[in-house]
């Protein structure tokens, strides 16, 4: 094992972290809108959000990646470079799941809370902002952190399709040169674990903590 390979793996680790963060950011933003749309009283909006969720959840991430990477050039546009293409695909994927998770959290805030706020004269958006979302947020933290673990691991699919040089990709390249799969994939696995395990622990801890407060 030489230092160039170690450095390459660390670079891959960094690329994985970057892609994960971008996905949290954009997937979270879009997911928030999807979640709100899903709970909208307007039929068209909530049905539209539901259709979006169903389609995105029904497509394998691998296929989504391919569509985002090759799609634009097939349609005659400039093709996306690997990082934007992977971010785009992961955003579509994660926003559908996060939207569905957060819809559930919004719904889980008891109906009477909504009515009480309504009777005080708060309009729909005020009720959401001041009464429902703060309570939904508490419920949402554990499943959201749990889903973040999925995202970190799923970034590895980017290496298969768009050739984004993240952790799995670099491990594969090194293995092609060294034929030491156990060593380098093993190190990659440890690196994934080092990111995901703290998240999982955190998620479980939050779940315990927030369940006590579940009233």
């Amino acid at each position, binding site marked *: 094992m030489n230092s160039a390979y170690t450095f390459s793996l660390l670079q891959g680790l960094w690329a994985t972290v970057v892609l994960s963060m971008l996905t949290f950011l954009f997937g979270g933003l879009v997911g928030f809108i999807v979640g709100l749309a899903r709970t909208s009283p307007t039929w068209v909006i909530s049905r539209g959000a539901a259709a979006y969720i169903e389609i995105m959840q029904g497509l394998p991430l691998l296929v989504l990646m391919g569509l985002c990477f090759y799609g634009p050039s097939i349609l005659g546009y400039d093709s996306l470079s690997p990082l934007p293409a992977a971010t785009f695909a992961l955003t579509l994927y994660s926003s559908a799941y996060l939207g569905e998770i957060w819809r559930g959290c919004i719904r889980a805030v008891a109906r*009477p*809370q909504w*009515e*009480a*706020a*309504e*009777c*005080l*004269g*708060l*309009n729909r958006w*005020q009720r959401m902002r*001041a*009464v429902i979302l*703060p*309570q939904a947020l*508490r419920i949402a933290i554990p499943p959201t952190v749990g889903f973040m673990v999925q995202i970190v691991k799923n970034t590895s699919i980017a290496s298969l399709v768009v050739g984004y040089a993240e952790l799995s990709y670099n491990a594969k390249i090194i293995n092609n040169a060294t034929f030491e799969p156990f060593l380098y994939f093993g190190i990659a696995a440890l690196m994934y674990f080092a990111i995901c395990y703290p998240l999982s622990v955190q998620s479980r801890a939050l779940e315990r903590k927030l369940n006590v407060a579940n*009233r």
Partner: protein
Amino acid sequence: MSPIVELKDVRKSFGDLEVLKGVTFDVNRGEVAAIIGQSGSGKSTALRCMDRLETIQGGSMLICGHELHDDDVDLKSLRRDVGIVFQSYNLFPHLTVAQNIMLAPRMVKGMKQRQAREIADTVIAKVGLREKMDCYPEQLSGGQQQRVAIARSLAMEPKLMLFDEVTSALDPQLTGEVLRVMEQLAADGMTMILVTHEMAFARKVADRVIYMRDGKVHEMGSSDILRTPATPELAAFVSESAEH
């Protein structure tokens, strides 16, 4: 004196189930009306219709000048005029008592923090919980939570207060403290409509008692009708209630 609440032949169904089958009654300004009756008689539904948590399907309903049978009714101004307190308190658990009370004055009336705080201080004093301003709802007893819920409604200075079985979830010891607050409100001249199982309270405080049965007003009058009911059904209901 002109009525502040006027129900005429009000009808409401949930699917095939007709819950209100033509309810008619008035309540005048400054009056306390108690709606009594068995579970399922439609009394809570009638009350919820008055704040338009449910929409009515027939008849007419005039509340503080708002025509609730009209689809274009101005809900915002209706809810400024009408306060409602629920059986399950429904305080916002993530906010302190002070924040619970100040939320609507600030958001709906656009008051500044200081002005809202003054109102909060006034209404919390009315329910006798000054020292609990910075507590969260979970730190309070059920009776205290319900008093805060009353204060929260009062902060919007409503013309009419609706009470939906507000003591039903409370232990008998805690019921008294909530009823005393309501009695004081009535003495201050607040127009109140309460759905209640507290017969003694209705007898003492109500100017008007409305006995509902099977989606209709079966008997109505001053609180004397609880002592000398005209119909055998109310007589039976009163004696049943007395046994509890």
